[in-house]
């Protein structure tokens, strides 16, 4: 598996590259933003590890250019500032995870592996229910023009509903699917996830059947 490591500090880059190599990755290294953009644009990588503070072109701009060019490899960003607004900007720009410096290399490798597993585990299956299209590879959903990035829980919930084929699914059953052993209060958590999904996909995408459960209609609006 190929990994692109973009880090301008040679010592850190050297160490992370060595750890990635030890974890089984073939690592390409870049030390500035322009090279990183070019490399990520023309080569296929299983993952990119991208520092935000880069010479020539900053990391966020590199990431935005990759996504604009439909480069879909998972990207983990490294940031020295560690401010929340910077993390939000990174995720908005299309990053899949972030780590603040200084970090433990072991944790970095674990996260890289998790991202690669998540991206590759779902091949590129697309599920369609009504107007709703679920991209199981990138954990995305779109309904007409509306695009939404889903959290792990949201994805698991809507994926489960999508596989129930017009069946009304009780909240308790969903909670059991999400959490395994459950108690009564977990249905509140299910309701919270459904509320957030409706905010992302529109209020008609999931209907509540009072006393029965939830039905995925996939309707836009």
């Amino acid at each position: 598996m190929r990994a692109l490591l973009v880090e301008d500090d040679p010592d850190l880059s050297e160490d992370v590259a060595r750890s990635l190599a030890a974890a089984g990755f073939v690592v390409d290294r870049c030390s500035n933003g322009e090279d990183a953009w070019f490399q990520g644009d023309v080569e296929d990588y299983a993952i990119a590890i991208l520092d935000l503070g880069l010479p020539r072109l900053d990391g966020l701009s590199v990431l935005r250019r990759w996504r604009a060019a439909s480069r879909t490899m998972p990207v983990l960003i490294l940031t020295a500032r560690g401010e929340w607004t910077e993390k939000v900007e990174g995720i908005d720009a299309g990053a899949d995870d972030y780590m603040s410096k200084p970090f433990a290399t072991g944790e970095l490798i674990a996260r890289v592996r998790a991202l690669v597993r998540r991206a590759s585990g779902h091949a590129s299956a697309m599920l369609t229910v009504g107007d709703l299209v679920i991209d199981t590879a990138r954990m995305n959903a779109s309904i007409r023009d509306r695009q939404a990035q889903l959290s792990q829980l949201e994805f698991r919930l809507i994926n489960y509903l999508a596989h129930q084929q017009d069946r009304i699914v009780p909240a308790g059953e969903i909670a059991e699917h999400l959490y395994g052993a459950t108690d009564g209060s977990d249905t509140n958590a299910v309701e919270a996830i459904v509320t957030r999904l409706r905010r992302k996909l529109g209020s008609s995408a999931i209907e509540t059947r009072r006393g029965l459960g939830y039905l995925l209609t996939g309707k836009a609006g």
Partner: protein
Amino acid sequence: MRRNSLRLRLLAGAAVTVFLALALAWAGISWLFLQHVERREADALVQIAEQVVAGLTVGADGRPVVEPRPADPRFQQIAGGSYWQATNARGSVQSQSLWDQSLPRTGASLNRWTRATVMGPYGKQLTMVSRQIRPDERPLGVTVRVANDNSEVRSAVRDFDRVLALSLALLWLVLSIAAYVQVSLGLRPLDRLRRDLERLRRSPSARLSEHHPHEIHPLIEAINAMATAREGDLVRARRRAADLAHGLKTPLAVVAAQSRRVREAGADNAAESLDRAVEAVGAALEAELARSRAAAARGASGDSDAIEVVEGLVSVIERTEEGEAIAFSIDIAPGLRAPVDGTDLAEMLGALIENATRHARRQVRIEGRREAGAIILRVEDDGPGMDASAIEVATQRGVRIDERGSGHGLGLSIVRDLADATEAMFGLGASALGGLSAELRWASPDHPPKRR
């Protein structure tokens, strides 16, 4: 009013000065009035005396004779208070009221009436006029004296003095009140200046208002120039501290990596020392960055859309290992704006949501609403919560709260410092979800907080 007070000094000075001026005025007016009354009294006596002179002749024995005598009945009553007497070397003639007494001899002029205040018979003080007359051009002169008991006049003057003193005391009171008003009005710009300076002390970016009397404009300009210089120094110092902290993070990551290699090489003790050093330096850097952020937030203006900030934060946190298993519910009134810069709000709520996520079992709820003149943002979780003593420790100033999991135990400290800097109230309590509830509360801009 404090002893060493400008207001007290000005007021005391005005009160004493006005009192002395009014006392002097009282003495002067009283003296003038007395002179006036005595002159009127003397004029009346001269008229009577001229009646005596009109009837004055010298008898064959050389003694003075007054015929007809003044008809005023007071001259008939013994010790009646009005007396006349004509005297020469051979003898004298006098009013019946004098009986066996005589008027005191004072120097009398030949050509004009002389006024004097004397002690007369029967122990009474008298106003007396006297003059030397030469009836029929005789060489032997006759001294004519006419006197009147002046106790009534003195009583009238005393009454006048008392009324005058009361009036002037009243005037003193009115003038003192006027002085108080004047001093208060005069010192009011200083009071406003003091409030401006208090604002400047709390917020280095604030400046003194230009709306002050032109007499203190040079002072305002000097203070504003000093504040600008101080703010510049602060900003440079903070920027250097933040740059230094950020600049150290990458080398620190390198050292952390070296530690792992050292451990792999079998030198566990050395690796542990390195790890401890990295952790200590990392904590110091985070603390410095937090201080720098809080200092920059102090006095900064701006507001931010609460839903936008919270949605952004949740989209980040739900991607973390801990966040992906948590259901986040966001219940924030549409259009709710927190009176704080978006970056600062993100730092506060980010730390609170991350903390709630770390301890939650299934669910984290973020609420926001406007209530009773306040803007409230609350983060709740369904985790184990904190007992009352832990909450008390967590909300104390200057206490660092250690948190489970990663991080440097700074999360709630950052929230507390930023809440302090943005004039928010930060509180912890029990949540209806069963875990901890963390609340940030700002006074709404429509309801500014009362001044301390």
